[in-house]
């Protein structure tokens, strides 16, 4: 019985955090909402036996990425005075209408669609999807080793690019 209760709690928490991200005027509140969503999603990962990914989610997202966001918010100042005049005509009305239509479509699909989202959901074998570090590492260093090396290169390039952007000054190439 633990999984349904925790699922409902964490679903409500993640949705509340997501709405806070979009609706808050102050970017710091948006970052806090994002933090709530990230933690709730990490708990949902643990519920589905993705232990390693949940730990990485907390360390990388909540630890590194969100701290970086807060640093930049503090660096460029908290700007709560977002201007609401429209540069593109009817942009917000269009998005609102689109949101209503998609929500209607999704609700109708859920209520009347009556289809299988993912087949074979009943015969879950907990052992084969237990995402321990050992199980993930076995896949990572056999099937996915080339992609793993590519991510190492990607991270190096990203770090070098960020340093280059930070060092750039006008009139000095």
């Amino acid at each position, binding site marked *: 019985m633990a999984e349904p209760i925790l699922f409902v709690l964490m679903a409500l928490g993640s949705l509340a955090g997501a709405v806070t991200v979009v609706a808050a005027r102050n970017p710091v509140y948006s970052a806090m909402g994002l933090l709530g969503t990230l933690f709730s999603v990490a708990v949902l990962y643990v519920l589905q036996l993705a232990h390693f990914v949940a730990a990485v989610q907390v360390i990388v997202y909540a630890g590194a990425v969100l701290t970086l966001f807060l640093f930049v918010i503090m660096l460029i100042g908290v700007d709560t005075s977002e201007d609401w005049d429209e540069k593109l005509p009817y942009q917000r009305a269009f998005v609102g209408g689109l949101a209503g239509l998609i929500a209607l479509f999704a609700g109708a699909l859920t209520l009347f669609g009556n289809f299988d989202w993912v087949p074979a959901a009943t015969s879950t074998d907990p052992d084969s999807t237990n995402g321990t570090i050992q199980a993930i590492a076995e896949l990572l260093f056999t099937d996915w080793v080339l992609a793993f090396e590519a991510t190492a290169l990607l991270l190096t390039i990203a770090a070098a690019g960020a340093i280059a952007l*930070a060092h750039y000054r006008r009139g000095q190439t």
Partner: protein
Amino acid sequence: MIVAAGWYMALAAALFLIGAFGLLLRRNALVMFMCIELMLNAVNLTLISAGRALNDLNGQVAVFFILVVAAAEVVVGLAIIVAIFRRRATASVDDLSELRG
């Protein structure tokens, strides 16, 4: 008693929608960036739950790679936002129309 994968998918769809509409509605570049992170998280949730329903661990490996790419993207994106702010002293995307054709 386990929760069926469809419920996780529905939650992920809701999170993705909220992120997408936040991206369309907000003008602050930082908040738009956070909405992109929200959408990435929604996709990660679908991959994990689909992996569990199909008894396949590769979904979790894919989520691991998405996390790495998202971290790199945030580093470069925030550096660009700071660089723009030093030139223009604004984080509102509507004021950044220099590249308009």
